[in-house]
Every structure is written in C-alpha cells, then in structure tokens.
C-alpha cells in the first residue's frame, strides 16, 4: 500500500517536472530577449551572462530614438490591420456560402485552397516585384496589403467555415420564415453570432502579417519599411547593438503575447487548422 502511494507520488512529481521543463524551454528564448533588452550594454557583453542585473530602459530609448521608428511601427500596424480587415470581408461571405449551401465539388475546393500552401513565396513574389516596379506599387503600403490578403485568405475561409458550421441554423431559418430578407439575416443574425470567430481569424491574420518578413523584405523600400525588415537591417550594421535589437524584438513581441493571453484557444485552433475538424 505504502509503496504504491510512493510510486504514485513519484510519478506525479515526475509529470510536474516534465511539464515545467516543457514550459521553460518554450518560454526561455522569449524571456532571454526581454531580459537582454533591459540590460545596460556592459551587462549584455558580459561573459558569463549575468542573471542578476539592474534593469534599465536605455536600450528602449536608443531604439525608439532612431529616426523613422515610429513610422515603421505605424507601417507594420496599418498594413497588418488593413490586410486583416480585407481578409475578413472577403472570407466571410465565401465561408458562409460554403457552410450553408449545397455546392458541387465543395471538398475539392476546400482542399485546393489549403494546397495553396505548397506555392513557394519566392515563386509568387518575383512577378509581383516586376509588376509593382512597373505600375508604381513597389514600396507602397497597398502593394504589400494586397499580397498579404492573398496569402492569408485560404486559411481564413477554412477557419470561418469550421466556425459557421457549428452555429445553429434554426435561428436563421425562423427569421427567414418570418419574412426577413436573407441579406438582413446575414448581416443582423449571422454576422453578430460570428463575432468571436471573425475576431479570432482577424487576430491570427494580424499576427501573421505583423510577423511577416520575406515579402516585406522584397517589396518595401524607404517609405514603407516594416518592423521585421528594420530589425534585420538594424542587425547588419558594422557593430551589432544587442541591447537595442532586443528592445525592438521585445516591442514587436509584446502585442502578440498580449493577444495570445486573450485569444489563446482561437489562436491554437487557427494555427492547427481548426484542429482539422470536419
């Protein structure tokens, strides 16, 4: 009896230790960015790395003092926000139609949209680069927004489809029986009920665009540089300034982490493709 309980205790202790390790490993590099951002240069360059140090906001001041940083924050924000809104506006009707109406080759369609993930971004971006240079969309916010919308639509439709399928149809049907106009039903009943789904998709899209590097590297120039590209170009200066770099990394990561606190479940579902529900 005693031995058995001992065994049980040992196992649950082991379980907790493993869980703690998983969380620590997951969080550590992010934690390291945050703490390095709070160190003074001497502490950053110190080997062995200092565990206890006096935190300062110097690095944040340095990075925020760089010319154009405010604009770049704005660029990243405006581009990500516009792309998310357009994605939702386009994806919602499509997902609604797929969820409610009978359609030929519906499964093929859904599969086709997901298989767009196979298309290499390099293959997509080269024609855009050439075309944008011709029609003057190179180094413009609109140019990048248009591309981000394209990249994020398939997943958005897929996720909203899963979400709309789970909404009760009865409410819509009774409204239609009562003589409501279908467009009204869509706007007054379905849209409000989908608010959480739309928010989740919007936030996931926002994060994807906010974090995006490759397209931004190719298609932005002096006027529209986003934070990810700035972080990269900031690093290739002659002498790497770890502190300010980490401060910028922190500022880029904090909004994402704050979102994740409130929308953990939706983000997990979104990233795992709605947990493949069907």
């Amino acid at each position, binding site marked *: 009896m005693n031995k058995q309980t001992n065994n049980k205790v040992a196992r649950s202790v082991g379980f907790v230790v*493993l869980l703690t390790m998983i969380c620590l490993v997951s969080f550590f590099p992010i934690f390291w960015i945050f703490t390095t951002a709070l160190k003074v240069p001497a502490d950053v360059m110190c080997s062995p790395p200092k565990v206890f140090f006096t935190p300062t906001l110097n690095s944040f001041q340095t990075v925020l003092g760089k010319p154009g940083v405010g604009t770049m924050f704005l660029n990243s924000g405006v581009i990500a926000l516009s792309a998310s809104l357009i994605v939702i506006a386009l994806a919602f009707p499509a997902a609604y139609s797929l969820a*409610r109406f009978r359609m030929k080759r519906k499964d093929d369609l859904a599969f086709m949209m997901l298989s767009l993930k196979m298309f*290499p971004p390099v293959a997509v971006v080269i024609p855009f680069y050439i075309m944008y240079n011709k029609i003057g969309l190179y180094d413009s916010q609109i140019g990048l927004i248009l591309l981000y919308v394209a990249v994020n639509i398939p997943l958005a439709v897929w996720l909203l489809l899963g979400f709309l399928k789970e909404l009760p149809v009865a409410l819509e049907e009774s409204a239609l029986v009562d003589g409501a106009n279908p467009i009204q039903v869509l706007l007054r009943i379905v849209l409000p009920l989908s608010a959480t789904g739309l928010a989740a998709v919007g936030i996931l899209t926002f994060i994807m665009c906010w974090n995006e590097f*490759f397209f931004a590297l190719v298609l932005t120039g002096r006027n529209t540089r986003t934070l990810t590209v700035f972080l990269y170009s900031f690093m290739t200066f002659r002498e790497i300034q770890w502190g300010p770099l980490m401060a910028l990394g922190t500022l880029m990561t904090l909004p994402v982490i704050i979102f994740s606190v409130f929308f953990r479940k939706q983000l997990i579902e979104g990233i795992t493709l709605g947990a493949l529900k069907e």
Partner: protein
Amino acid sequence: MNSLAKHRYLFLLPVLGYLLAFVIFPTIYTWKMSFSTLGVNKFVGLKNYIYLAHDPTFVQALLNTLYLVCAAVAIELVIGFAIALLLNRQFRGKSLVFWFILLPMIVAPVVVGLAFRVLYDPTLGLVNHLLSLIGITGPEWLTTARLAMPSIILIDVWQWTPFMVLLLMAGLQYIPKSIIEAARVDGATKWNLFRYITLPQMKNFIVIAVIFRAMDCFNNTFAQIFMTTRGGPGHATETLPIYAYRTAFVFIKFGRAAAMSMMLFFVILLFVTAVRRVSREKLMQAI
C-alpha cells in the same frame, strides 16, 4: 427557402478571383519566366534549368533543403508525439501549459532568429556558457560548417514542435476510449497499446501533421536563416528559398530564380505525393 442560395457561387467569386489574380496567375507567370530571361520577353527554352543542373550551389541548396526539412520534421514528430502523449490527460493548469506551448509559434521568425543568434553566440551566448559549466568548450555554432545546419534545425524544432503537439493531441482525442479499455482489460502492455492501437489510429493525423509541417518548413524557413547565418558559412545553410532570393534580388537573374522556385515547388509536390503514397490513405478522408 433561402433565396441567397441561388447566388451561392457569387459569394465565392471574390475569394476565387482574388486567389486567381494574386497567387495562381503570378505562379504561372513565374513558370513561363523560368523558360526565359528578363521577364518573359526572351524565350530560352530549358537553358535556366540546364544551368541549375550544372550549378554546384544549387545542388547543395537542394540537398540542404531536404536535410533541413527531413531532419526538422522527423525530430519534431518524435518529440511532439511524446509530449502529446504526456499531455493527453486531465490535469490542473492544462490551459497554462498550452499557452506556453503556443508562444514559440506566434513570435516573429526574425525575432526568433535574433534570440537564437544571441544564445548561440560563442562569447556571450548562454549555450556555450552552460556547456562550460560542465567542462565543455562550446564550438562556434553558427559559423562552423558542420554545425550550422544542425543549429538551424534546432531553432526550427524549438519553434514548431508545438505545432506537432497540438495537431497530434487533436488526433489522440479521436481514438475511442473503448478500444483502449478493451485492450487494457485483455492485458496489453503500454508498449503494445501504443504500437498496435495508438499508432495505427493516429496514422492519418501523423500524415497530415507531417505534410503541413513539411510544406511550411520547405517554404517559410527563411527569416530564421537570414537572421542567423544568411546561408553561410560558405553555402552550408543555403536553402532553396534563400538561394532563389539571392539569385533574383541580389544577382538580378529572374529567369534562373524562377526556374529555381519552380524546382522547389516540384520538390514539395513530390514530397507530399510520396508521403501520401507511403501512407496509402487519402488525405481528405482524414481532414
């Protein structure tokens, strides 16, 4: 009853038109461009592809890409499966653990690259400091040819093992409890349970997880490499996306870069087909 049903295809039109214009059409253009030089103006037949076949850097980039994807996805699958099995039970604080697991996936890849660059740094990095505590002199992780790619793989494993965990956990929930109970009553050992029940039941989920992770790893492991090694030292971590990027936007050889990105597309297609063939299951059945 719903009069919108008549116009159901109309609702899809914006999305389909958009994807056609912004993804499909550009890729077709790139396809055409891979047989030309300077845009699609001058047709040169297979010249770009023949050039690539004789370009040792391209061959190395192709092998590097396969090395990265195969190693990273395999490691992520094994560790991810183990963690998924561990977490597949009720316990307090489960949602907190999930929040921690979510974090690596939503941090910007450039920031991830930056973080690991510091951690790997030979003089101020924590990795070598920890190694020195147990008496090992750490190597220069990112600038030694032999170690650079494994270091990149480790970054990918850190960032994307959570994806495997979440996807496989979703799969584990679909295994009927009754089968497991029945097997347990019949005296199946833990290993037998895993080998003859969990694993076969999870086959479809494993295939989907591997395919999605691999597609992403082929195409989107860009920023992490760009921030840490930029393809170096030499060409040790040069992958197809990196090399295609440099060919197009540094060397300004669009035709060649187009051919390269088409090769990448076919490699992915081949990989996905191979995985599906091996599993002998239709992907859609499980999705």
